[in-house]
């Protein structure tokens, strides 16, 4: 069985843990529970021609109280940047983490998930941010499950192929 490690990166309260819970356990809770440290979940994914065991590292949200340990990214075959559709500031945090991650582990498949699309979005991704990201963007909702499976599957496929994902991405990408 092939095993791959994915890291979840983003500011606090963007829904990283909710996305993992939706993906791994098919559950969602409206209650926000902050993550301290790292939580590792496992899920087997059938990609048609191949089965892959994903180790999803849910890392605590970055803010002034908790800084990300970049060593947690070691061995990661890809990562998912998560931002909150209702908080524009979380994009800046994601861009900063993206730059740090690239420095720590080099170019690996990465996607940006604009999460909480079940809520009214207060901002739109601009061209300058897209230029910095250079990765596919997908709108997800951990609450409804919209695009959650698809996002992890697309990232897993890219990791198996060992290729960088170009801009574009899975369904409903912006």
């Amino acid at each position, binding site marked *: 069985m092939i095993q791959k490690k994915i890291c979840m990166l983003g500011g606090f309260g963007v829904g990283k843990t909710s996305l993992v819970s939706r993906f791994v356990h098919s559950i969602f809770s409206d209650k926000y529970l902050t993550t*301290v*440290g*790292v939580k590792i979940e*496992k899920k087997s994914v059938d990609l048609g021609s191949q089965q892959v065991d994903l180790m999803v590292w849910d890392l605590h949200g970055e803010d002034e109280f908790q800084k990300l340990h970049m060593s947690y990214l070691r061995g990661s075959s890809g990562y998912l940047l998560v931002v909150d559709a209702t908080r524009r500031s979380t994009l800046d945090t994601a861009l900063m983490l993206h730059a740090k991650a690239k420095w720590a582990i080099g170019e690996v498949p990465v996607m940006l998930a604009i999460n909480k699309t079940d809520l009214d979005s207060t901002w739109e991704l601009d061209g300058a941010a897209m230029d910095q990201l250079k990765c596919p963007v997908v709108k997800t909702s951990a609450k409804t499950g919209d695009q959650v499976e698809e996002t992890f599957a697309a990232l897993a496929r890219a990791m198996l192929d060992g290729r960088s994902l170009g801009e574009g991405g899975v369904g409903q990408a912006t």
Partner: protein
Amino acid sequence: MSDDLLKALLPALGIAAFERHIDGSFRALAPIPSWFERLAGDGTFPFLGHILEEAVRYWNKGEAKPRDWGPSAETDEAGREFHYMVSALTLAGRNVLIFSLDTASDRMRQVLQRVRDQALAAEQRAERLKVTDSHGGTE
């Protein structure tokens, strides 16, 4: 401290302690607490895989100060989250790896939760105000 006392004390404190031998194998220094048994039960232990390489480097350097990793979060049978830390140290020339429950992180989480709940609410309020302003205060 007698071996018998140590073997009773470590699981009572929720500590799983292992000695690493030259051949790379590990031997438990005392009976393993149930939380740890459950954690390692399915044969995969990703967090251990992550730290082992760094722990071996630490032991090979022969540093005096222990090296810590964590906290790592897990969920117990009742669905409650708990945290643990991993420490590598060298005692009397013997390489030891310790897994211990981290109640400080449990407390820190409660504090962080309050702080972040407030920060989240403030950010969302500010975003809503921005949207209202951009619509000429019509919303």
